[in-house]
């Protein structure tokens, strides 16, 4: 039998054995230790956790008669069972990867021995790994962080959409169950839910379109305005107009909410000073929507302005000169030279901003908190976006499963737009430029 098959087989049975067979003692020991810990875990805990993930608990908390006394017995906690189940699935995945790696290593070293090549010492193996697999080493720490702090929670949230984890079914008093697509069906067919869903979704899309268009057009126009050769103190104007971007938006939005206060805010007092009646900025459904768009313009225009500046400085002067020779006026130059150049360079960003605006939580939450309240809506107000509705559902109403459904809808929405645009960006395509 070849040494490579022997080593691989041994390692497949017990991690590390193949390495021992290959006379790589230290390496074998490392593999053996990690492997036995893994096998112990699989044999001892895994099945219980996986079972928990499937059943989500069998016994709710209940009163049990012990002799003459009735005692509260703690039942299964479905949510913890779910998390533990997920974590052990993940651990199993990691272990499988490790096991395969171990077999592969034994096989490769065995093959080298078949060819009568010298075997690496432990130190050499480590150095070799540092050279060959530098990228993996570098990525290991971020990988673990992202898996545990982003992916695991996301998977958990997505799973919640398929359970009935919503007030009043809250553990530990109740057991949560899998309900399949039940929540999605309710969202679409049950009247209280579907009318809110439709309304909020429509407003979210309208909001994203208007918010993107206004900040984009505003930003480009301001950049062009400053970029005119006749304008002096360019740096000063740019700095002054960048200020809204520089102020932490959490602060500026809270400030703006007070500025737009119907009774005491300065905006209405100026309007009244002009002899007009004040506008119900935040309490009238229509004006509340106008207000959040205005606030968003104030925050968002500087970003586009900065981007447009970057593009404008790269437009070669001779293009304008050529246009002038042809007798083009200022407006014509803008339309034929500036605008196409700016549009071309910033189009991918435009789509990203649109996708981002679908999720602009802060603007809505801090300015209006979704209000004014809409009596026809289920836990939502006139200005609520899908994101803020999700937030309210989860944190104020404990409707976790419905919140997760909304989260998935938002994801689908954003993904549709983003994938389409990202696939066209240089950063994503294989980079021929550095090859």
């Amino acid at each position, binding site marked *: 039998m070849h040494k490579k098959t022997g080593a691989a087989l041994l390692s497949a049975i017990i991690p590390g054995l193949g390495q021992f067979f290959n006379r790589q003692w230290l390496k074998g020991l490392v593999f053996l230790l990690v492997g036995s810990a893994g096998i112990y875990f699989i044999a001892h805990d895994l099945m219980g956790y996986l079972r928990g993930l499937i059943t989500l608990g069998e016994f709710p908390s209940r009163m049990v008669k012990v002799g003459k006394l009735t005692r509260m017995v703690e039942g299964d906690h479905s949510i913890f069972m779910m998390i533990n189940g997920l974590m052990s699935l993940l651990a199993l995945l990691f272990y499988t990867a490790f096991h395969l790696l171990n077999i592969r290593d034994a096989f490769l070293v065995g093959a080298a021995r078949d060819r009568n090549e010298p075997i690496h010492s432990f130190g050499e193996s480590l150095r070799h790994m540092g050279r060959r697999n*530098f990228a993996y080493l570098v990525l290991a720490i971020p990988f673990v962080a992202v898996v545990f702090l982003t992916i695991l929670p996301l998977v958990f949230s997505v799973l919640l959409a398929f359970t009935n984890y919503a007030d009043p079914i809250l553990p530990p008093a109740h057991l949560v169950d899998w309900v399949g697509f039940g929540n999605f069906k309710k969202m679409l067919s049950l009247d209280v839910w579907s009318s809110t869903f439709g309304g909020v979704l429509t407003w979210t899309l309208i909001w994203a379109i208007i918010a993107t268009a206004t900040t984009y057009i505003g930003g480009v126009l301001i950049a062009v305005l400053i970029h005119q050769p006749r304008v002096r103190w360019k740096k000063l104007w740019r700095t002054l107009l960048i200020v809204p971007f520089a102020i932490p938006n959490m602060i500026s939005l809270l400030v703006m909410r007070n500025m737009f206060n119907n009774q005491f805010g300065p905006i209405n007092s100026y309007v009244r000073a002009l002899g007009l009646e004040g506008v119900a900025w935040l309490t009238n459904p229509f004006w509340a929507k106008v207000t959040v768009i205005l606030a968003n313009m104030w925050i968002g225009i500087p970003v586009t302005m900065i981007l447009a500046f970057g593009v404008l400085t790269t437009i070669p002067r001779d293009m304008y000169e050529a246009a002038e020779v042809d007798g083009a006026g200022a407006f014509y130059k803008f339309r034929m030279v500036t605008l196409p150049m700016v549009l071309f360079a910033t189009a991918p960003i435009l789509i990203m901003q649109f996708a981002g605006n679908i999720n602009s939580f802060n603007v809505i939450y801090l300015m209006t908190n979704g209000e004014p309240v809409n009596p026809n809506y289920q836990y939502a107000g006139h200005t609520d976006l899908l994101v803020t509705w999700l937030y309210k559902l989860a944190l104020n109403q404990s409707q976790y499963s419905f919140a997760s459904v909304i989260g998935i809808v938002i994801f689908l929405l954003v993904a549709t737009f983003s994938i389409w645009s990202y696939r066209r960006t240089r950063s994503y395509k294989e980079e021929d430029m550095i090859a």
Partner: protein
Amino acid sequence: MKPKLTEAFKTIGSHLLLIVLSFISLFPAFWIIMSSFKTGNSLFSDSLIPKNFTFIHYKELFEQTKYLIWFMNTLKVAALSTLLGTFLLLLTSYAISRYRFKGRKTTLTALLVLQMFPGFMAMIAVYVLLNTLGLLNSHWALVLVYSSGAIITNVFVAKGFFDTIPKSLEDAARMDGASHMKVFLSIMIPLSKPMLTYASLMIFNGCFVDFIFADLVLRTEETRTLAVGLFRMVNQSNSTEFTLFAAGAVLVALPVTLLFIFLQRFLVDGLTAGASKG
């Protein structure tokens, strides 16, 4: 004669427009600064510039609220997250941009997909997770979540930046026998200073601004960050402490804003680097 006149007219017009726009852009900041110097505690005032200036609210801020503690908490969380987050971001974007390894495309796609989930959808889950791990009410939880989140939000900009650094630089160094580590530390990091500044500023600012997650995790007044403290000040008591909030807001926003304006150049570079991907 006539073209000159219209030219002058246009010049004046443009400048007038810029003055109006600058006024709009600065007004909220100006108003909140003025409010912080106002006597009394209400939102209402007859004039923009208060008749008598007072520093009482700034004093109150330090004497009656836990503002100083909040400030230190925020600084601690933001500094640690920025350090850790920038480090993780650097590792990720560098490896993805520079190395061709198995699973690279998958990694890219995964990062892309992760970016599209609403950020705090995972929040509830993280909350339950932290609860099971007993990490609730701890600043470390915030630091960990912020820094791993920083990878997701900034990786494409950072990667785009690394892509623009010519490969020949590294090859030359490798020819001279430099190791991967050496190339990374002495060539790539110094060259990526603008991007690092941009990214760390973004992460730092994110920590200053976030109040949703912080509010969820931090349970006691002593552990709160500024954003949470200020948000509660103006949110729960229905603006009765408005001038106090104004003073607090000025003290937070001023340093951050100045930092941003001071580092403007890097910001412009960073944003355009991210934009020119197209």
